[in-house]
């Protein structure tokens, strides 16, 4: 009888495993990915596959260098989550080297130079995205027009593969790319909102196609919420703050008006950000109250940058800015412990 000597608790939740949590996040991304593919073609799928291969390989190399067990650490699937999120955020027909630079930055610098999984202060996917956006603005803003708007047909899978890997002349893309819904709003100086809305890039409430993509990410996010992968605090407060800010900046249609709250909710990276980026536990505030503040601040920042900033979308910048602030928020939002009076804290 060899008895195991371990301390309590002896029982553990059978399904709670970091790898399983990450897998569920990946599953929840699938509806969104499918919708993107429907509206923009196979480009995003190609990017996701390429980014995944890169991310896992780079992670394996770093783990090898750090003399860590490959199987154990790759089993948490966190590299895949980073890869998928970045690939989804990139324009569907972004060239292979753009993906490579982004993933390398995300995995090597934003993640492992800080100590790897759990130790990174900034969301790796967002670091990768912002590095690309600042370094390669042209490639990062070349968005294909969605199905129903594009003049030409969307490329099929093989064409997408060839496009993304530069095997064919990429100038053919010029025929199918155009400004996005948020681009037009940012650039608009003279048109009334109703006139602007005549552009086929707009759909019923948000960007054409984009509203469906956002709805799909919302669906995935709600599934994760129902499965308690994260709590409602950060995403709900993010969406609420964005809605309120948009409502404050909306005057129902003049040329100076911002987009309507509904447009802001269902355009750009709003829902992807709300349920898959803002909820990244590693880089956000830790307490529920802290996560509410964290989410709300991101919401306000997103609207501010969209409305007054030079960049059409702002989720990545806002998230990174609030990553900075997370420790500060933590310092002031310690929950009240049983038997204690509410915490009055100074730094």
């Amino acid at each position: 009888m060899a008895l195991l000597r371990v301390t309590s608790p002896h029982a553990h939740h059978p399904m709670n495993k970091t790898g399983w949590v990450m897998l569920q996040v990946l599953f929840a991304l699938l509806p969104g990915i499918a919708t993107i593919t429907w509206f923009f073609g196979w480009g995003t799928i190609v990017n996701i596959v390429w980014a995944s291969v890169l991310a896992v390989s780079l992670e394996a190399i770093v783990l090898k260098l750090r003399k860590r067990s490959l199987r154990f650490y790759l089993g948490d699937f966190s590299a895949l989550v980073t890869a998928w999120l970045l690939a989804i955020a990139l324009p569907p027909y972004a060239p292979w080297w753009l993906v490579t630079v982004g993933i390398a930055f995300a995995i090597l610098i934003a993640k492992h130079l800080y100590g790897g999984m759990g130790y990174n202060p900034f969301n790796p996917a967002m670091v990768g995205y912002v590095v690309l956006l600042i370094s390669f603005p042209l490639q990062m803003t070349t968005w294909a027009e969605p199905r129903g708007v594009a003049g030409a047909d969307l490329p099929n899978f093989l064409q997408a593969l060839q496009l993304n890997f530069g095997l064919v002349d990429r100038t053919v893309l010029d025929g199918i790319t155009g400004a996005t819904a948020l681009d037009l709003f940012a650039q608009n100086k003279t048109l009334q909102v109703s006139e602007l809305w005549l552009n086929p890039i707009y759909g019923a409430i948000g960007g054409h196609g984009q509203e469906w993509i956002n709805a799909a990410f919302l669906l995935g996010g709600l599934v994760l919420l129902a499965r308690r992968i994260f709590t409602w605090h950060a995403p709900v407060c993010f969406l609420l703050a964005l809605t309120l800010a948009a409502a404050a900046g909306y005057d129902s249609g003049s040329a100076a008006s911002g987009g309507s709250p509904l447009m802001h909710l269902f355009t750009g990276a709003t829902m992807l950000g709300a349920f898959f980026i803002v909820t990244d536990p590693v880089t956000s505030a830790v307490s529920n109250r802290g996560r509410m503040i964290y989410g709300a601040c991101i919401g306000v920042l997103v609207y501010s940058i969209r409305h007054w900033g030079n960049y059409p979308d702002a989720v990545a910048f806002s998230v990174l800015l609030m990553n900075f602030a997370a420790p500060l928020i933590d310092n002031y939002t310690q929950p009240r412990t049983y038997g204690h009076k509410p915490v009055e804290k100074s730094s």
Partner: protein
Amino acid sequence: MRKTFSIHGGVHPPENKHQSVRTPIRFAGIPSELTYPLSQHIGAPAEPIVAVGDRVLKGQKIAEAQGFVSVPIHASTSGEIIAIEARTVPHASGMSARCIVLKPDHEDRWIEHAGIADYTQEEPAALVKRIREAGIAGMGGAGFPSAVKLGIKPGTVIQTLIINGTECEPYITADDILMRERAEQIIEGVNILTHIIKPKETLIGVEDNKPEGIAALQKAAAGTRIEIVPFPTKYPSGGEKQLIQILTGKEVPSGKLPADIGVVCQNIGTATAIYRAIVHGEPLIQRITTVTGKAVDEPQNLEVLLGTPLHHVLATAGFQADKADRLIVGGPMMGFAMPHDAIPVVKTTNCVLAPTARELPPPPPAQACIRCGMCAEACPVSLLPQQMYWFAMAKNSDALQEHHLFDCIECGACSYVCPSSIPLVQYYRASKADIRLQEQEKRKADYSKQRYEARQARLQKLEDEKEAKRKARQQAAANQTSAPAANDAQAIIQAAVERTQAKKQTANDPAAAAIERAQAKRDGRAPTDDNPLETARLAVASTEKRLQTAREKLAQAEAEGSDKVDAFRTGVEKTEAKLSEARAALARLEHQTTSATPAASDDPVQAIIERAKAKRAGLADDEDPIAKLERLLASTEARLQATQEKIALAESEGSDKVDALKTGLEKLNEKHQQLTAELNTARASQTTEGQ
């Protein structure tokens, strides 16, 4: 139905309770050897009152409680004490501790014992004493002496008596089966508790996963004021503070006791033990223990004699040693893994769990914390386990305490849900131990520092005094003889030698050295002064100073609990004696110079009175009686005040001179009144004369 409140967090691990309630409670029998750890409760270990070779009877006290928070231990069957030695005890560390070992004679003969026919006629204090004498400590797992909880501070009103039948740990059914089979005993025990603490309401809290137990209790409690309160099952609802929150909505403030918010909490097993102790006069010598897990063939609840080794209990339930992966005393959430099965069942052993490796798989290696916050969601006291984990790894004690590490009840809910399988509770336990150690060491260091500084100050003072004295002597020598320079050098050398000697003496024994120094001073000074009155005054003054120093030293020694206290006290007494001698001498001399009335006494007060008398006598020659009286009155008043101060000092030091001083004070008071009267008469007569 009564409104219940919910606690923050909590988890729902698989209950696994049904396996062990299929059969009724069974007696486990008398094993071949019984082991009684001296510490089966929280507080000071009991002390054996039997010797190896003694024959004891069932229920006989074999170890006596030590101190207030402690309980005695009784033999659970008759037999012979065969050893008092260190054995492995049921403790998280698997450590050994002193145990009394009993070899049963299998006659199971009881010691004479009797219950109380009608406890309602008894004083609560007497019942509490009986409960303490019966060795009863909390049987829910913590083992806090029950009598201590029942010894409520006078003036505290207990609003609610809570009986804890929650049993929230998976697998354990000892309380459940007790409710099903012995509800009447529980209710009777609760009635006794109600009689003792007289609460406004009595609640029995039971999780709603025990419908049979609840029904049995309700039936037994019919017609009483006891209320059975079922509430939703959630781990860890059975924690004392959690249960109080669930039933009353109140929180026990951090660092306080439930009694501070008018609540007393007792386990239902404890209530039954109290019933047996009061009504039958039986001490706590057996308990119900759940034996369960997939490595036992017949999971069940056994009535086990305290001290029975685990292997006997396990064998009774059909233990498959080769299947067992670990042996847990307690439940899967908070139980301790035991190193082997030769460990006794004690007062707190509510469960022996022998799981297979499949049943409770060993924890996988820990992954990185992703701060997902599932732990914070599960924490019943609203801590931030993920933050505390980082602080624990960084050994940041300040941040840990700011995050209320010591409010962690170590329930294990955080570790249970952690997707990265981080043994969080283990980190907190280690951190708590570290911080306690740090604080202990800090206290020690502060203490040493204080002592060192006090010593330095003392030495410096002595050095300064010696230096001043040496200078004075030098001066005197120069004035008297204008000695050659060689003498000066000799004096310096002499002084140095003296200093060294003094230092040596100080190093050996401060009290003796002080006395010797004082003697040396007196001896040394006497011949240098020509005026005997002046010498006497100086002697009194310096003795007073010495007395003051000696008292200070004594006070310090007492405060530090030093073993020099006695030596210092002797020193103070000697100095006091000397002071009275010196004062008497001074008074004598003063009398000689004024009216030559001898007044010698050993008692300082007497001496003061004598001196006062002498003074008055001396002043009697003066021409103006009123001025004389006024002067006398003023000095009496001054002395009165001085005596009062002395009394205060003596009282604060707890000196035995207080009474003598008080007598002196009374006498002085009398004199004061007398003088006032005299003065008034004199003034009156003067006024009449003037008219």
